[in-house]
């Protein structure tokens, strides 16, 4: 099997991740931050150690501002719904995944929020976004990397806008995490959201939001393991935003995933994925009637002639090649590249893909 759907989730995980998940279930299967017995304390220490590993990976000095969530969608909903005031204006990109677009549309319908869409391929992103700022603009909510085209938005331009205008900045790093050398200590932001199970090589069922400060509002209330007499959630991060039992095995897996990346070096991971992207592109360009809409950072989207994208993906699946076709939960991105009606086929590479696998892809596409 050739797995080229890493933007959906990474299939091949480092052995250390698998061992960490299994070890958490076998040795640490107690509720962290709840009881006082030895096993619970060990589980608690594992969770904090994971926060530290993630913050080291992101070059961020505040592990206690990392809030664990169910996934990146949950993290984004949490950030968007607690940080954006009613009746304010928000700026989003023309690449947004529905994990940003749908909560914004929901706020537009229910809470009087308006939004405008900036062009991600503008020559000067700073000026492009600046042109959308109004008196009541409260936030920029944007992806850092498209899950359809791989196109990236420069984080420092966004940070500079936040500093200049004092508006909130909520970042969707779902595709960028694990494939970008972040230094969050140098970035002005309000929330940075990512999943465990894509570029960070953790397992499904976990994401996280890094909050620059403890939000005034909470999205979810419940047990936090402390201050049980208080009717409200604790005031401080991370417990304020973490109601309920944390997914300890997934957290152990994410800790192992980021440590794996850091042991190789993020720049090495990036350069290998970039190399594989170029190799894939050079093969795809040989395919007759192929239309390539975007190709960057491991993500390439295309169609072949008039072949429906799902049919193409099915033919690839028949020969053991996993890709994703359709709209990728990102209608804005497809509208931008002109494939809102047809969709397209997306291949998405990871550090673990090989040139031989790309050769197989090439041979299979030639027959379509």
């Amino acid at each position: 099997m050739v797995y080229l759907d890493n933007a959906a989730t990474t299939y091949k995980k480092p052995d250390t991740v698998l061992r960490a998940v299994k070890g958490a279930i076998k040795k640490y299967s107690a509720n962290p931050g709840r009881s006082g017995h030895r096993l619970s304390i060990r589980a608690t220490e594992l969770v904090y150690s994971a926060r530290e590993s993630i913050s080291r990976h992101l070059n961020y000095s505040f592990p206690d501002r990392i809030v664990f969530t169910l996934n990146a969608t949950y993290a984004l909903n949490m950030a968007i719904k607690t940080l954006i005031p009613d009746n304010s204006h928000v700026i989003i990109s023309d690449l947004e995944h529905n994990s940003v677009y749908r909560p914004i549309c929901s706020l537009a319908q229910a809470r009087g929020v308006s939004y405008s869409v900036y062009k991600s391929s503008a020559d000067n992103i700073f000026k492009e976004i600046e042109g959308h700022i109004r008196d009541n603009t409260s936030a920029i909510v944007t992806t850092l990397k498209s899950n359809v085209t791989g196109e990236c938005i420069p984080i420092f331009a966004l940070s500079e806008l936040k500093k200049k205008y004092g508006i909130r900045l909520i970042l969707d790093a779902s595709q960028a995490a694990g494939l970008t050398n972040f230094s969050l200590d140098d970035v002005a932001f309000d929330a940075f959201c990512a999943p465990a199970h894509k570029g960070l090589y953790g397992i499904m069922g976990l994401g996280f939001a890094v909050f620059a400060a403890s939000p005034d509002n909470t999205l979810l209330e419940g047990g936090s393991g402390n201050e049980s007499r208080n009717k409200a959630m604790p005031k401080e991060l991370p417990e304020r935003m973490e109601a309920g039992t944390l997914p300890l095995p997934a957290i152990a897996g994410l800790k192992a995933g980021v440590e794996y990346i850091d042991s190789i070096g993020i720049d090495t991971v990036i350069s290998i994925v970039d190399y594989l992207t170029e190799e894939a592109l050079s093969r795809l360009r040989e395919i007759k009637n192929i239309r390539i809409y975007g190709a960057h950072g491991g993500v390439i989207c295309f169609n072949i002639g008039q072949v429906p994208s799902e049919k193409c993906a099915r033919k690839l699946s028949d020969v053991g090649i996993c890709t994703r076709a359709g709209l990728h939960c990102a209608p804005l991105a497809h509208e931008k590249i002109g494939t809102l009606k047809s969709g397209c086929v997306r291949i998405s590479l990871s550090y673990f893909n090989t040139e031989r696998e790309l050769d197989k892809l090439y041979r299979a596409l030639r027959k379509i």
Partner: protein
Amino acid sequence: MNTTTISVGSVTHAQKARRLLARLNVQTKLVKLDASMTAGGCTHGIEYASADHYTVVMELKKAGISYYIYQD
């Protein structure tokens, strides 16, 4: 050995405090505190040798971590 236990508000802050103190070779233990003795009920604290108390409070003050003495 005489020990002192302080509450620092949450288990995460307790862990943060432990890391800071470990850098100064102050040995600490993470403990669950009795709900009857804390304002909000249910929290974790850190226990350390009473002889290290001055070092602990200075370091926590420097780090902006608020605490209260649970047991001395």
